[in-house]
């Protein structure tokens, strides 16, 4: 029994954290909010650490690690609000790894593992539909229709698309009839697009139907991890602010009113660490709990993240409401984490459907 990160996992977090501090501190992120260009240099640095292929089989050029490793990296990326296509990319690679034929894996995974090509997932459909069971986009060989809220679609070489019957297909960049429209989303560190297909060629993943729910659950776990990291950062920012800002001649952190609010915030952050760990760990090691724990962790931690975002604006006073203040960057990441792949309410309802105590 050892419910803790390994030394390697801790070092991985540290290395990624140092890279983020160097290459995209908040001042840099603020600049990037004004541009919609993909940050190739940053992606290349992350690729240098092997992040795009972390959980891809060694046989296909990846590091062959586990979902928990992806999750601890997600925590660190969330802590630093690192911009870019990481989430969609690793989910797409996971989908191909689980559902692709040997040939498909051989053809796509090595370039995804190295980060040379970028992939993403298109799971959303109009009307807040995310669940593989409810996908309605259909087509064999070619697709016509639309997927919504696809992260980094404009930069993606491959898009793993959710199809009717919970199947998965792959559409390549530049395919005929593929159109990509930016969506005006709040989070500018993870740009989102609506993607439409008009008789667009699409290659089906033979094991897609089995893979799709697992990919969704991994996605929920990674969102939970990102949310834990982000809420932790917001708490740190508020504590730092409370220790330095003075009002009425004393640092504001000495006022009980604010102190108790920060203590309440801490109660909403720190205890979620083990929860996201287990949700991610279960994906590889506790299949009977994997689905339910992913739903619980995503619902609980992204909901808390959003609340911490609100609390953080308040804890900063007027400045917290400005664009210049860093709080807004994480506040909007919380909006993404909360809504992407389904809201907390939806996953709570799913968690109850799966709960032993509800049977």
């Amino acid at each position, binding site marked *: 029994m050892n419910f803790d990160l390994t030394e390697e996992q801790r070092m991985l977090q540290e290395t990624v954290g140092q890279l983020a501090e160097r290459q995209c501190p908040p001042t840099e992120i603020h600049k990037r909010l004004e541009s919609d260009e993909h940050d190739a240099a940053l992606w290349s640095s992350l690729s240098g650490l092997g992040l795009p292929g972390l959980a891809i089989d060694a046989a296909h050029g990846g590091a062959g690690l586990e979902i928990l490793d992806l999750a601890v990296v997600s925590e660190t990326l969330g802590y630093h609000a690192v911009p870019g296509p990481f989430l969609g990319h690793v989910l797409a690679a996971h989908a191909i790894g689980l559902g692709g034929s040997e040939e498909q894996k051989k053809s796509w995974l090595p370039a995804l593992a190295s980060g040379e090509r970028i992939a993403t997932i298109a799971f*959303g459909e109009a*009307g*807040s539909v*995310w669940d593989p069971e409810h996908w309605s986009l259909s087509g064999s060989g070619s697709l016509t229709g639309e997927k*919504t*809220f696809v992260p980094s679609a404009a930069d993606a070489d491959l898009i793993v698309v959710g199809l009717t019957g919970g199947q998965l297909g792959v559409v390549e960049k530049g395919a005929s009839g593929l159109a990509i429209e930016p*969506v*005006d*989303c*709040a*989070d500018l560190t993870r740009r*989102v697009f609506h993607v439409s297909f008009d008789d667009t060629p699409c290659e089906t993943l033979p094991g897609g139907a089995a893979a799709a729910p697992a990919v969704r659950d991994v996605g929920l776990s990674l969102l939970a991890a990102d949310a834990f990291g982000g809420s932790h950062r917001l708490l740190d920012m508020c504590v730092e602010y409370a220790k330095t*800002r*003075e*009002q*009425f*001649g*004393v640092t504001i952190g*000495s*006022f*009980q*009113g*604010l102190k108790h*609010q920060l203590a309440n915030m801490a109660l909403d952050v720190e205890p979620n660490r083990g929860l996201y760990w287990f949700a991610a760990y279960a994906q590889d090691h506790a299949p009977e709990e994997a689905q339910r724990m992913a739903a619980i962790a995503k619902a609980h931690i992204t909901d808390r993240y*959003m609340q911490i975002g*609100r609390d953080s*604006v*308040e804890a900063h*006073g*007027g*400045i*917290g*409401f*400005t*664009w*210049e*203040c860093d*709080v*807004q960057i994480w*506040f*909007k990441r919380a*909006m*993404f984490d*909360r*809504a*992407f792949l*389904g*809201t*907390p*309410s*939806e996953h709570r*309802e799913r968690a109850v459907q799966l709960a032993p105590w509800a049977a």
Partner: protein
Amino acid sequence: MDLTYDSELESFRDEVRSFLEENWPRQGDDAVQAFRQRAIEAGYLYRHFPRKYGGSEQEAHPLKGQIIREEFGRARAPSEPLGIGPSMLAPTLLERGTEWQKEKFIPRTLTGELIWCQGYSEPGSGSDLASLRTKGELVGDEWVINGQKVWTSGAHLADYMFCLVRTEPDAPKHKGISYLLIDMKQPGVEVRPLRTMTGTADFNEVFLNDVRTPRDWIVGERGEGWLVSRTTLKHERNSIGGARRTEESLNSLARLAKKTMRNGRPAIEDPEIRQRLATIEGYVQAHKYSGFRQLTKDAKGESPGIITLMMKLFSTNLQHEVSKLSLDLLGADGMLSAGDAHLGKPASDAQSWIGAYMYSLGIAVAGGTANIQRNVIGERGLGLPRDAAAKRSAK
């Protein structure tokens, strides 16, 4: 208790209606201006300002005020122009200004000809006015002012600013501040837009570098600025407006719940959403009838009591609950950016709900944070002792 208006007031209402029927809508470029002038002559606008300053010089009558608001609202007729000049500067001058200040500034402020902005907040001062750092020094016949103001809405449009400036550096902190009027159209005034998290620049920062204003453009005495800034108008308070807006928010939420699907049916049929809507309605109705009670108390010239200290925080809390429920109803659209909706405008689509979601935080933050308001309720409302730190600072 009687929620109808008596016959005198009902005939007043008829009078207002006939006036509106005759005078609104009207044609022409100056239709609004001309209508307002007529409405002032008829005694319906600027009721508390003397005629010589452009008001209609009526006795305070909160119920008549309410009827006028209701009927003008119903007819969609132009009312007193919005803006901080008519609502804050003019009443302050009326109470604290010198005769020449009143004559010079009030009439053109009331017509909307002069646009004002407010210079109270500074970076790092927030709700603690004692820490104000903008300095004013009397050099000959002029004040020379240096410093920076923040959260200044409309600074880029304003002709003048009324602001708080530290003029008596040796006096105790609250007593060293004066209330000065400044011409914004002069060198040394630099206005920079301040973007909020919604992405919109609703506010400004204003930098004051050797800005000058005549010696007698001071309202009240030197060092009295803090007191002068607290002059507020209680003539015909609009006790019901806030409640009406929260009622509209509830109705909008219900409409959103009707067109949103949840668990396979319209969200308005979902027991959880129903419970949350009904819980919000409890607060909305409490708000509404507290407003009715305040209006009555005002009409009788009695104090409504502690409730007046509470309604701001109450509204903020309520708007938070409305916002949270809206986000839950928006589903995937909950990750969209804010439109440029402001609270007060009814939200019409997902982005304006997101805007309202963010603005509900701005409200908490503007005009004193929630914690300052809790202090006020606790100390002035409930009579609890002040805390040690605040006591020290007040010395």
